[in-house]
Protein backbone atom coordinates (compact mmCIF):
# COMPACT_ATOMS: atom_id res chain seq x y z
CA UNK A 1 0.00 0.00 0.00
CA UNK A 2 1.26 3.42 -0.93
CA UNK A 3 0.35 6.44 1.19
CA UNK A 4 1.20 10.02 0.34
CA UNK A 5 0.90 12.88 2.81
CA UNK A 6 0.44 10.09 5.27
CA UNK A 7 -1.28 10.87 8.53
CA UNK A 8 -0.84 14.61 8.07
CA UNK A 9 -3.91 15.30 10.15
CA UNK A 10 -3.87 12.30 12.45
CA UNK A 11 -2.47 12.11 15.97
CA UNK A 12 0.22 9.61 16.88
CA UNK A 13 -2.16 7.20 18.51
CA UNK A 14 -4.41 6.96 15.49
CA UNK A 15 -1.43 6.73 13.15
CA UNK A 16 0.01 3.79 15.07
CA UNK A 17 -3.38 2.10 15.26
CA UNK A 18 -3.92 2.39 11.52
CA UNK A 19 -0.40 1.23 10.72
CA UNK A 20 -0.90 -1.80 12.96
CA UNK A 21 -4.04 -2.73 11.11
CA UNK A 22 -2.36 -2.40 7.74
CA UNK A 23 0.62 -4.45 8.92
CA UNK A 24 -1.71 -7.17 10.14
CA UNK A 25 -3.44 -7.25 6.79
CA UNK A 26 -0.05 -8.11 5.34
CA UNK A 27 0.51 -4.92 3.41
CA UNK A 28 3.93 -3.61 2.63
CA UNK A 29 3.61 0.02 3.62
CA UNK A 30 5.23 2.60 1.37
CA UNK A 31 4.75 5.94 3.07
CA UNK A 32 5.69 9.52 2.30
CA UNK A 33 5.50 11.94 5.16
CA UNK A 34 6.97 15.16 6.45
CA UNK A 35 9.23 14.75 9.44
CA UNK A 36 6.74 15.12 12.21
CA UNK A 37 5.31 11.60 11.91
CA UNK A 38 8.62 9.80 11.61
CA UNK A 39 8.82 8.60 15.21
CA UNK A 40 5.37 7.06 15.03
CA UNK A 41 5.93 5.40 11.68
CA UNK A 42 9.43 4.03 12.06
CA UNK A 43 8.45 0.85 13.95
CA UNK A 44 6.38 -0.23 10.96
CA UNK A 45 9.01 0.01 8.26
CA UNK A 46 12.39 -1.47 7.49
CA UNK A 47 14.13 1.40 5.76
CA UNK A 48 13.81 5.02 4.77
CA UNK A 49 15.28 7.75 2.69
CA UNK A 50 15.46 11.47 3.05
CA UNK A 51 14.27 13.45 0.04
CA UNK A 52 16.05 16.71 -0.54
CA UNK A 53 15.90 19.45 -3.16
CA UNK A 54 18.36 22.16 -4.01
CA UNK A 55 17.67 25.37 -5.90
CA UNK A 56 14.03 24.21 -6.09
CA UNK A 57 14.89 22.03 -9.07
CA UNK A 58 17.41 19.29 -8.26
CA UNK A 59 15.96 16.52 -6.13
CA UNK A 60 18.06 13.83 -4.56
CA UNK A 61 17.67 11.11 -2.00
CA UNK A 62 19.77 10.08 0.92
CA UNK A 63 19.32 6.63 2.40
CA UNK A 64 18.82 6.55 6.16
CA UNK A 65 20.19 3.60 8.05
CA UNK A 66 17.64 1.53 9.91
CA UNK A 67 18.27 -0.12 13.23
CA UNK A 68 16.18 -3.31 13.04
CA UNK A 69 16.85 -4.23 16.68
CA UNK A 70 15.33 -1.03 17.99
CA UNK A 71 13.04 -0.43 15.03
CA UNK A 72 14.33 3.11 14.76
CA UNK A 73 15.97 5.14 12.08
CA UNK A 74 19.57 5.95 12.80
CA UNK A 75 19.18 9.69 12.74
CA UNK A 76 21.56 11.99 14.53
CA UNK A 77 20.30 12.35 18.11
CA UNK A 78 19.56 16.05 17.96
CA UNK A 79 17.44 15.80 14.87
CA UNK A 80 15.33 12.86 15.87
CA UNK A 81 11.71 13.68 15.32
CA UNK A 82 12.43 17.28 14.63
CA UNK A 83 13.34 19.32 11.66
CA UNK A 84 16.77 18.13 10.65
CA UNK A 85 19.57 20.32 9.58
CA UNK A 86 20.46 20.07 5.92
CA UNK A 87 21.06 16.42 5.33
CA UNK A 88 23.31 16.77 2.34
Amino acid at each position, binding site marked *: *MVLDKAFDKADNEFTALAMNIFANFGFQMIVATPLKSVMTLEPFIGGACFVHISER*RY*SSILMIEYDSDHQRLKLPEHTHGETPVAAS
Partner: protein
Amino acid sequence: MKPATPSSGSPFDADQFRMRRLQVFNWGTFSDLHDIPMAERGFLFVGPSGTGKTTLLDAISALLVPPRWVDFNAAAREASRAGRDRNLVSYVRGAWAEQKDDESGEIAMQYLRTGTAWSALALTYGNSQGRVVVLVQLFWLRGSSNGNTDVKRHYLIFERPFDLREIKDFDLDVRKLKKSFPEAFAREDFQPYRERFCRLLGIESEPQRAWPRPCDINWGAPIMARRSTRPWCWTRPSTKPTTNSPRWP
Protein backbone atom coordinates in the same frame (compact mmCIF):
# COMPACT_ATOMS: atom_id res chain seq x y z
CA MET B 1 3.51 9.26 23.67
CA LYS B 2 4.92 5.85 23.08
CA PRO B 3 3.46 4.47 19.89
CA ALA B 4 2.04 1.00 19.81
CA THR B 5 4.56 -1.44 18.51
CA PRO B 6 3.63 -3.52 15.52
CA SER B 7 2.66 -7.07 16.26
CA SER B 8 5.84 -9.02 15.93
CA GLY B 9 6.79 -9.78 12.39
CA SER B 10 3.29 -9.97 10.93
CA PRO B 11 4.00 -12.96 8.72
CA PHE B 12 3.47 -12.53 5.07
CA ASP B 13 3.15 -15.23 2.48
CA ALA B 14 6.40 -16.58 1.15
CA ASP B 15 5.11 -16.04 -2.35
CA GLN B 16 3.86 -12.50 -1.74
CA PHE B 17 5.77 -10.08 -3.91
CA ARG B 18 7.01 -6.92 -2.27
CA MET B 19 8.73 -3.86 -3.65
CA ARG B 20 12.50 -4.07 -3.38
CA ARG B 21 13.85 -1.20 -5.41
CA LEU B 22 12.73 1.89 -7.30
CA GLN B 23 14.85 3.49 -9.98
CA VAL B 24 13.98 6.74 -11.70
CA PHE B 25 15.84 8.33 -14.58
CA ASN B 26 15.09 11.93 -15.57
CA TRP B 27 11.77 11.85 -13.75
CA GLY B 28 10.51 15.26 -12.65
CA THR B 29 13.11 17.03 -10.56
CA PHE B 30 15.12 13.81 -10.31
CA SER B 31 17.68 14.37 -13.04
CA ASP B 32 19.77 11.46 -14.16
CA LEU B 33 19.54 8.17 -12.28
CA HIS B 34 18.33 7.75 -8.72
CA ASP B 35 18.33 4.34 -7.11
CA ILE B 36 16.22 3.62 -4.04
CA PRO B 37 16.49 0.23 -2.36
CA MET B 38 13.21 -0.38 -0.55
CA ALA B 39 12.92 -2.53 2.53
CA GLU B 40 10.42 -5.32 2.10
CA ARG B 41 9.11 -4.72 5.58
CA GLY B 42 8.04 -1.21 4.58
CA PHE B 43 9.61 2.00 3.44
CA LEU B 44 9.42 5.64 4.38
CA PHE B 45 10.09 8.71 2.26
CA VAL B 46 10.73 11.64 4.57
CA GLY B 47 11.46 15.25 3.86
CA PRO B 48 9.89 18.69 3.76
CA SER B 49 7.17 19.41 1.22
CA GLY B 50 8.26 20.34 -2.26
CA THR B 51 11.32 18.11 -2.26
CA GLY B 52 10.04 15.31 -4.50
CA LYS B 53 8.35 12.69 -2.30
CA THR B 54 5.13 12.79 -4.30
CA THR B 55 7.13 12.69 -7.52
CA LEU B 56 8.57 9.34 -6.43
CA LEU B 57 5.19 7.93 -5.42
CA ASP B 58 3.78 9.11 -8.75
CA ALA B 59 6.50 7.06 -10.41
CA ILE B 60 4.99 4.01 -8.71
CA SER B 61 1.54 5.11 -9.91
CA ALA B 62 2.73 5.47 -13.47
CA LEU B 63 4.17 1.97 -13.33
CA LEU B 64 1.04 0.33 -11.95
CA VAL B 65 -2.06 2.35 -12.72
CA PRO B 66 -3.67 2.42 -16.19
CA PRO B 67 -2.92 5.74 -17.92
CA ARG B 68 -6.56 6.76 -18.05
CA TRP B 69 -6.93 6.19 -14.33
CA VAL B 70 -3.70 7.64 -13.13
CA ASP B 71 -4.11 10.50 -10.76
CA PHE B 72 -0.83 12.17 -10.02
CA ASN B 73 -0.49 13.83 -6.66
CA ALA B 74 -3.90 12.48 -5.67
CA ALA B 75 -3.44 13.25 -2.01
CA ALA B 76 -2.91 16.97 -2.54
CA ARG B 77 -5.75 17.23 -4.98
CA GLU B 78 -8.19 15.68 -2.56
CA ALA B 79 -7.29 18.31 -0.05
CA SER B 80 -6.98 21.44 -2.09
CA ARG B 81 -7.67 20.88 -5.76
CA ALA B 82 -4.09 21.83 -6.31
CA GLY B 83 -1.70 19.46 -8.02
CA ARG B 84 -3.50 19.22 -11.32
CA ASP B 85 -0.38 20.61 -12.89
CA ARG B 86 1.30 17.24 -12.62
CA ASN B 87 1.19 14.99 -15.63
CA LEU B 88 3.48 12.86 -17.74
CA VAL B 89 4.75 15.87 -19.66
CA SER B 90 5.72 17.72 -16.51
CA TYR B 91 7.57 14.65 -15.28
CA VAL B 92 9.39 13.95 -18.55
CA ARG B 93 10.26 17.61 -19.00
CA GLY B 94 11.25 18.06 -15.38
CA ALA B 95 8.93 20.90 -14.51
CA TRP B 96 9.78 23.02 -11.53
CA ALA B 97 8.37 26.29 -10.30
CA GLU B 98 10.38 29.42 -10.08
CA GLN B 99 9.14 32.06 -7.69
CA LYS B 100 9.22 34.98 -10.05
CA ASP B 101 7.97 37.77 -7.93
CA ASP B 102 7.80 37.49 -4.18
CA GLU B 103 5.08 40.11 -3.79
CA SER B 104 2.60 38.76 -6.30
CA GLY B 105 3.59 35.17 -5.57
CA GLU B 106 3.65 34.67 -9.30
CA ILE B 107 5.10 31.35 -10.31
CA ALA B 108 6.78 30.61 -13.61
CA MET B 109 7.03 27.03 -14.75
CA GLN B 110 10.48 26.05 -15.85
CA TYR B 111 11.72 22.85 -17.45
CA LEU B 112 14.92 20.97 -16.75
CA ARG B 113 14.70 19.08 -20.05
CA THR B 114 13.75 20.90 -23.22
CA GLY B 115 14.05 19.46 -26.68
CA THR B 116 13.93 15.71 -27.21
CA ALA B 117 13.93 14.07 -23.80
CA TRP B 118 13.35 10.66 -22.33
CA SER B 119 12.61 9.28 -18.89
CA ALA B 120 12.60 5.80 -17.42
CA LEU B 121 11.20 4.09 -14.36
CA ALA B 122 11.91 0.66 -12.94
CA LEU B 123 10.21 -1.02 -10.01
CA THR B 124 11.65 -4.27 -8.72
CA TYR B 125 9.46 -6.77 -6.91
CA GLY B 126 10.73 -9.85 -5.18
CA ASN B 127 9.34 -12.64 -3.06
CA SER B 128 11.04 -14.73 -0.46
CA GLN B 129 11.37 -17.63 -2.85
CA GLY B 130 13.86 -15.57 -4.79
CA ARG B 131 11.62 -14.71 -7.72
CA VAL B 132 12.13 -11.27 -9.21
CA VAL B 133 9.85 -9.21 -11.42
CA VAL B 134 10.91 -5.80 -12.69
CA LEU B 135 8.40 -3.39 -14.23
CA VAL B 136 9.99 -0.86 -16.56
CA GLN B 137 8.54 2.04 -18.46
CA LEU B 138 10.13 4.43 -20.90
CA PHE B 139 8.67 7.81 -21.83
CA TRP B 140 9.87 10.23 -24.43
CA LEU B 141 9.02 13.49 -26.11
CA ARG B 142 10.47 14.53 -29.44
CA GLY B 143 11.52 18.04 -30.28
CA SER B 144 9.60 20.66 -28.40
CA SER B 145 6.34 18.71 -28.25
CA ASN B 146 4.54 19.31 -25.02
CA GLY B 147 1.16 17.64 -25.14
CA ASN B 148 0.17 14.67 -23.04
CA THR B 149 -0.67 12.74 -26.20
CA ASP B 150 2.81 13.49 -27.54
CA VAL B 151 4.38 11.37 -24.82
CA LYS B 152 5.50 8.07 -26.30
CA ARG B 153 5.61 5.16 -23.96
CA HIS B 154 7.10 1.71 -23.87
CA TYR B 155 6.46 -1.05 -21.37
CA LEU B 156 8.88 -3.78 -20.35
CA ILE B 157 8.80 -6.58 -17.83
CA PHE B 158 11.84 -8.53 -16.75
CA GLU B 159 11.83 -11.70 -14.71
CA ARG B 160 15.38 -11.16 -13.59
CA PRO B 161 17.15 -8.38 -11.69
CA PHE B 162 17.28 -5.38 -13.98
CA ASP B 163 19.11 -2.10 -13.61
CA LEU B 164 18.11 1.01 -15.57
CA ARG B 165 21.79 1.51 -16.31
CA GLU B 166 21.38 -1.33 -18.79
CA ILE B 167 19.38 0.98 -21.06
CA LYS B 168 21.35 4.15 -20.56
CA ASP B 169 22.07 4.30 -24.29
CA PHE B 170 18.40 4.28 -25.28
CA ASP B 171 18.03 6.43 -28.40
CA LEU B 172 14.22 6.21 -28.80
CA ASP B 173 14.67 3.23 -31.13
CA VAL B 174 12.29 0.65 -29.74
CA ARG B 175 13.21 -2.01 -32.24
CA LYS B 176 16.82 -1.84 -31.23
CA LEU B 177 15.80 -1.96 -27.60
CA LYS B 178 13.76 -5.11 -28.15
CA LYS B 179 16.69 -6.70 -29.91
CA SER B 180 18.98 -5.95 -26.99
CA PHE B 181 16.57 -7.55 -24.53
CA PRO B 182 14.94 -10.52 -26.24
CA GLU B 183 14.17 -12.01 -22.83
CA ALA B 184 12.01 -9.07 -21.83
CA PHE B 185 8.27 -8.83 -22.28
CA ALA B 186 7.96 -5.64 -24.34
CA ARG B 187 4.75 -3.88 -25.36
CA GLU B 188 3.46 -0.59 -26.71
CA ASP B 189 0.29 -0.67 -24.64
CA PHE B 190 -0.51 -0.69 -20.97
CA GLN B 191 -3.18 -3.38 -21.11
CA PRO B 192 -1.05 -6.41 -22.05
CA TYR B 193 1.70 -5.14 -19.76
CA ARG B 194 -0.78 -4.96 -16.92
CA GLU B 195 -2.20 -8.41 -17.58
CA ARG B 196 1.32 -9.74 -17.53
CA PHE B 197 2.43 -8.13 -14.29
CA CYS B 198 -0.86 -8.96 -12.59
CA ARG B 199 -0.33 -12.59 -13.44
CA LEU B 200 3.33 -12.60 -12.42
CA LEU B 201 2.69 -10.81 -9.14
CA GLY B 202 -0.43 -12.77 -8.28
CA ILE B 203 -2.81 -9.86 -8.62
CA GLU B 204 -6.27 -10.69 -9.78
CA SER B 205 -7.00 -8.66 -12.87
CA GLU B 206 -10.56 -7.50 -13.26
CA PRO B 207 -10.99 -5.24 -16.26
CA GLN B 208 -14.38 -3.92 -15.16
CA ARG B 209 -13.34 -2.59 -11.81
CA ALA B 210 -9.76 -3.53 -11.73
CA TRP B 211 -8.40 -0.76 -9.54
CA PRO B 212 -9.56 0.58 -6.26
CA ARG B 213 -10.70 4.15 -6.27
CA PRO B 214 -8.35 6.64 -4.71
CA CYS B 215 -9.09 6.65 -1.05
CA ASP B 216 -11.23 9.32 0.53
CA ILE B 217 -9.84 9.03 3.98
CA ASN B 218 -8.59 12.38 5.14
CA TRP B 219 -5.41 11.03 6.70
CA GLY B 220 -3.78 10.27 3.44
CA ALA B 221 -4.86 8.75 0.20
CA PRO B 222 -3.57 5.33 -0.76
CA ILE B 223 -3.06 5.65 -4.46
CA MET B 224 -3.32 1.98 -4.90
CA ALA B 225 -3.47 -1.05 -2.74
CA ARG B 226 -3.28 -4.71 -3.42
CA ARG B 227 -3.09 -7.84 -1.47
CA SER B 228 -3.63 -11.41 -2.48
CA THR B 229 -6.59 -11.78 -4.73
CA ARG B 230 -9.32 -9.43 -3.68
CA PRO B 231 -9.57 -5.88 -4.97
CA TRP B 232 -10.71 -3.62 -2.21
CA CYS B 233 -11.45 -0.10 -1.31
CA TRP B 234 -12.18 1.81 1.82
CA THR B 235 -15.54 3.31 2.36
CA ARG B 236 -15.66 6.99 3.08
CA PRO B 237 -15.55 7.35 6.85
CA SER B 238 -18.94 8.61 7.95
CA THR B 239 -17.98 9.50 11.49
CA LYS B 240 -14.60 8.68 12.87
CA PRO B 241 -12.22 6.80 10.61
CA THR B 242 -11.09 4.66 13.54
CA THR B 243 -14.42 2.91 13.64
CA ASN B 244 -14.33 2.16 9.97
CA SER B 245 -13.48 -1.25 8.69
CA PRO B 246 -12.56 -2.11 5.15
CA ARG B 247 -15.34 -3.20 2.89
CA TRP B 248 -14.50 -6.15 0.73
CA PRO B 249 -16.34 -5.77 -2.50
